[in-house]
C-alpha cells in the first residue's frame, strides 16, 4: 500500500478535559505496556496501551518536552499520532 512520505508527524496528546500537546513532532517516546518505545516519522500503523510514565516529545524546532501520564492508549496512523491520556499527573 502506497503511503506518502512525510518529514514530520502530527501529534495530539489529549485528555478528556484538554489538549496537552497539538502540533508537529519529530520524535515521540512513549511508556508502552511492554516498555518504553519511540515513534519516528513514517512509523507503521499501530495501537498500543500505555502505562504510567513520561512521554517525551521532540518537536520540529528540536525542543524537548515531557508529559507525566498515569495510563492511556496511543494510535499511530499515517503520521498522525493520537495519544489518549487518562489524566496528567502535573496540573
Amino acid at each position: 500500500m502506497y503511503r506518502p512520505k512525510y518529514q514530520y508527524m502530527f501529534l495530539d496528546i489529549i485528555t478528556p478535559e484538554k489538549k496537552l500537546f497539538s502540533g508537529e513532532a519529530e520524535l515521540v517516546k512513549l511508556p508502552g505496556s511492554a516498555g518504553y518505545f519511540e515513534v519516528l516519522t513514517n512509523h507503521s500503523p499501530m495501537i498500543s496501551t500505555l502505562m504510567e510514565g513520561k512521554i517525551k516529545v521532540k518537536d520540529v524546532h528540536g525542543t524537548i518536552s515531557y508529559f507525566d501520564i498515569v495510563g492511556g492508549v496511543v494510535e499511530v496512523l499515517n503520521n498522525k499520532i493520537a495519544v489518549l491520556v487518562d489524566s496528567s499527573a502535573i496540573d
Partner: protein
Amino acid sequence: MANLKEMRLRIVSVKSTQQVTRAMKMVSAAKLRKAQDAIIQIRPYAGKLHDILVNLIAQLGSADFENKYAEHKDTKRILIVAITSNRGLCGGFNSNVVKKVEELLLTNYDSYYKRGSVDILAIGKKGVDGLKAKNIQVTKTLHKLFEGLEYRSAEVVAQDLMNAFSDGEYDRIDLVYNQFKNAAVQKLVVEQFLPVEIMEKVMEDSETHHYFSDYILEPNVLEIMKTIIPKSLKIQFFKSILDSVASEHGARMTAMHKATDNASELIRDLHLQYNKARQSTITGEILEIVSGANALNG
C-alpha cells in the same frame, strides 16, 4: 383602591426582583458558556476513542469476546442514577428528572420496585428533595461531584458503578439526566449505562464506515479492548454529567429570562394603575378646590 404610597413601594420591590433575575440570567449565561466549552473539550478524546474501538472491532470481526461489563445476566437488582443539580430556580430541570424516575419505578421497573430491588443514586440536592417529596427512598447521594467538577472525580464515581456491576451488586444501571441540545432546549433521556450496549452500536458503525485494520497491536486486541472499554464507559458517564451541568445553566437562563420578562409586564401594569390612581386623586382635589371657590364666590 390601594393608596399611592403602597403602590409605589410595590413597584420598587418588583423592580428590585427584576434586577436580581436579570443578574442571575447573566451569571447563568456565563456559566453556560463554560459548561459548553467543557463539552467541546471532551469531543476529540471521545471521538478518537470511538474510532479506535471501531477499528479494533473490525479487526476482531465480531463483538463476541469476554467483557465483564457487557454480561446480560438475569436482572435482579437495578440502580437508577438520577442526575439533577444542587441549586433550584431552573424551571422544570430538576422536576422532570424526578418525574421520570417516578414513572420508571411505576411502569418499567414496577415489579422490581415492589420487591424493593431498585436502588436510587441521586446526584444533586434538588433531586433528593424532589424524590423525598414523592416518598421515594434515595439509597445514596453524591452532591460533592458538582463542586469543581473535573474528569478525575467523575471517573471515580464511574469506576464505583462499574465495580458494583461487575461484582454483581446490580445487574443493570440506568442514567436519567437532561441531555444538552442548546441553551433553550434540554432533552430528558434514560440511558442504559451497564451492561454496555456500545458494542452493538459500534458494530453497526464498523459495517458502514471505512476503516483501517492493519495495525500493529501492542500487547494484543483483547488486552487493548480491556483497557479501552472502561475508558469509554467513564467518558460516557462524564459526558452525561457535563451535559446535565450545561442543561442546568441553560434551563436557569431561560427561566430567569422569563422571570425578567414577567417582571417587566408586572411593572407596566402597576405603573398604569398607579398613574390612574394618581390622576383620579388630582381630579378629586381640583373638584374640591373649584367647588370650594364657587361656594365662596356664591
